[in-house]
């Protein structure tokens, strides 16, 4: 009875404002990124569409790694084996694809994605069944997966199907729309949107937000946790594939992806305590972090300083964010 006038009163502003308030952090991050792009154009006039394509290809593996990390952090866990899982899936992909037909390559991609899920499943099952803290389990497994990667291929090498390489190279529609950006958006959307609308997505947020309450609500906490790790494995495999696609080979040594993904998750507004945040924020955060490094290069600042600056920005931005939150909750 009271609902009807309520709905009638709601204009577009009434839905936009709460939405904006809820996503204030991500919107701020997008604004920051826009400012960075403008600034980049100012200091480096030659920054154009092809530079943007380079940026998109460069951030793709880390963006997928950040998404992988975000899923498990939302569920209240953490995965320190993402970099190793990427290395393992990447070398498996490069080794199997080398010298094979394009059609065979499609099969390889499917195999690698399944492999990623299995790796994540093993991580999750160990965390749930042994009750060893996730940070310990995944740290230990990071050595296992890295070792496996070296067993598969002792040195960088292998190959990649041409279609896979073409998937991330160049642009579509306009020069300003890099293919790899489209790939990123499509891949994340196809995997995450159905899940986030399902009971599984709800349960992932629930166990991350308050485990006990979720348990009492009848959420299968263990299963949900394992599923979250499996999803993380899947996204890590996608990140590994993107590594192979962009370099054309497989490298058995894990890159700096694990810790960078944690940084991106934090900067992307996902609470490390779990339950709060989304996947879009971390992706934007990855681009921001990459842009900062690019700008430092343009300004010809020593790359060692760039690392220092990156760290300070991370701490600073997160600090500003929590200050803003404190003020809001006090008001």
């Amino acid at each position, binding site marked *: 009875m009271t609902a009807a006038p309520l709905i009638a009163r709601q204009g577009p502003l009434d839905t936009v404002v709460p939405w904006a308030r809820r996503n204030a952090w991500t919107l701020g991050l997008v604004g920051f990124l826009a400012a960075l792009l403008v600034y980049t154009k100012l200091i480096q006039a030659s920054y154009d569409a092809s530079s943007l394509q380079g940026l998109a290809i460069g951030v793709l593996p880390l963006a997928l790694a950040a998404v992988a990390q975000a899923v498990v952090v939302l569920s209240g866990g953490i995965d320190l084996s993402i970099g190793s899982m990427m290395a393992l899936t990447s070398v498996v992909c490069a080794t199997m694809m080398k010298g094979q037909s394009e059609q065979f390559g499609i099969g390889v991609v499917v195999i690698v994605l399944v492999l990623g899920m299995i790796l994540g499943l093993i991580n999750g099952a160990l965390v749930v069944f042994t009750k060893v803290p996730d940070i310990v389990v995944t740290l230990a497994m990071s050595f296992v997966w890295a070792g496996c990667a070296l067993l598969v291929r002792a040195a960088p090498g292998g190959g990649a199907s041409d279609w896979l390489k073409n998937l991330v190279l160049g642009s579509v529609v306009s020069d300003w729309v890099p293919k790899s950006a489209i790939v990123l958006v499509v891949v994340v959307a196809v995997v995450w949107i159905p899940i986030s609308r399902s009971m599984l997505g*709800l349960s992932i*947020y*629930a166990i991350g937000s308050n485990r006990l*309450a979720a348990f*009492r*609500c*009848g*959420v*299968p906490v263990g299963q949900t946790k394992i599923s979250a790790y499996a999803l993380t494995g899947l996204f890590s495999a996608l990140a590994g594939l993107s590594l192979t696609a962009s370099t054309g080979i497989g490298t058995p040594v894990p890159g700096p992806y694990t810790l960078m993904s944690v940084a991106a998750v934090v900067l992307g507004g996902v609470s490390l305590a779990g339950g*709060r945040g989304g996947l879009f924020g971390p992706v934007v955060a990855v681009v921001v972090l990459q842009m900062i490094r690019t700008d430092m290069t343009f300004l010809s600042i020593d790359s060692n300083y760039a690392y220092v600056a990156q760290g300070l920005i991370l701490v600073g931005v997160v600090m500003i964010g929590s200050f803003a939150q404190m003020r809001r909750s006090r008001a």
Partner: protein
Amino acid sequence: MTVTTDLLLEATGVSKTYGAVVALKSASLAVRPGEVHALLGANGAGKSTFVKILTGVVQPDTGRIVVRGKERTAHSPAEARRGGLVSVYQEPSLIPDLDIRANLRLTKTPVEPFRHWLGQLGLTDLDLSSLARKVPLASLRIIDLARALAIEPDVLMLDEMTAALPANLTERVLEVLKSMHGGDRSVIFISHRLIEIAAVCDRATVLREGQTVGVVDVTAGSEEKIVELMLGQSVEGLSARTGDVAGPQSRTKGATPRISARSLTSGTRLHDASFELYPGEVLGVVALEGQGQDELFDILAGSERPRGGELLVDGQPVSFRHPADAIRAGVVFVAADRAEALFMQRSIRENIALPFSTRLRNWGLIDLDKEHESVDGAVRTLQIDARAGGEVRRLSGGNQQKVTIARWVAGGVRTMLCFDPTRGIDIGTKSQIYRLLRDMAEAGAAILIYTSELKEVQLVCDRAIVIFGGRVVGEVSAADGDEPTLLRAAYNLRAEAAVPEAVAAMLGSSSSGAEASTSAASTRPEVQQ
């Protein structure tokens, strides 16, 4: 195997041991359809273990649970839920980072019945798209209950659900429970408040030392019998007073008040708190939920700084920046939430000794002998069951609460602030705490106690102040402080309330603003008599 019975739920011979500790020896429970059945027991009687077994959180060692004639073993709350048994706890099981609608989806709760029950419980203006963590705690408890009711479980179990609910909402809950009489569903109601049991329950099952010791038909006058069963041999009067009516006479005329609050204000809740706390008295604070009492205690304990007003301790103006300042000035705080006050993984000794040792030795080594002496003394004074003392989290709730008090007793109490110190603990422990507070007051300490259980005022206080809408609006002496009077005062219904003239004058000037600023009062002005 099927059992021919008209019982809705029947548990027989349920036992559970944790290592060497026997939590449950032989518990039984029989619930008929359409009844509200109380499950009672002192802390440590095995009540919470029994509840956990019924709800599938832990598995029993032996015993049978039969629901609607079918034997059932639940391995998780989800299974118990599917089997028709849903629980509502003192802490609402809502996910803070999801909105209400998503929370309903999580438990597959239909929205329309949910809204219906929400209306029954008096919560009509809820926006389903608000995040659970932005909704006030009392409303969350109601939402949790409405959600459980909407699923229409065979057996609804309310575990201490009313323990931290304000009086007006408790009444609504009890009314809804009454309306469930005579249907084919049942309620298992767990509460430490016998008055609530008497109001809604048909029968009560009493546990003691892991065994079911009796099933009582709840009628007028059955409280005595229940208490007798719960306590076993050691039946004692609940009152802490030993014959004499300790009263205002212990307040020495002309003594300097330990605490003088003058027009303290803070945030949006506390507007004008003025009162005086004298040595040798127990001063009660009576208020409905959210009238500013939380803020007041935070200020007095040094956790928050007031926005305005003046605070005097022993006649000296003070401005606490930190709880350490308050402790140094002799003002110590016993929090309602034990999890907030205790170091759950550490021992009783460390929990008690921490504030005491920090005060004695700032940098040097801790004098362990002396520490042991004081700690042992405090443990003895409070009769803490220290068998599981290695880690405080393994103690029962009542014993944990005793530890939070003991840490201050060990160092000698000058002024103690207690915020609902007996919330959710059993009668035996309650009565020990009452006696302890009285003894401390006799010895010259000043004690300020907020209580959500109004009858405690007469049991332990000398007088009580009433806070309403962020203002101290009245004062009631213990002699006049029966429950109806206090409840009326808490709702700020001035008409028949016995308030001193001086306060009544103040009331006239401040109550109009107070009424406008409080929504809690407008929801339910009529009070059960």
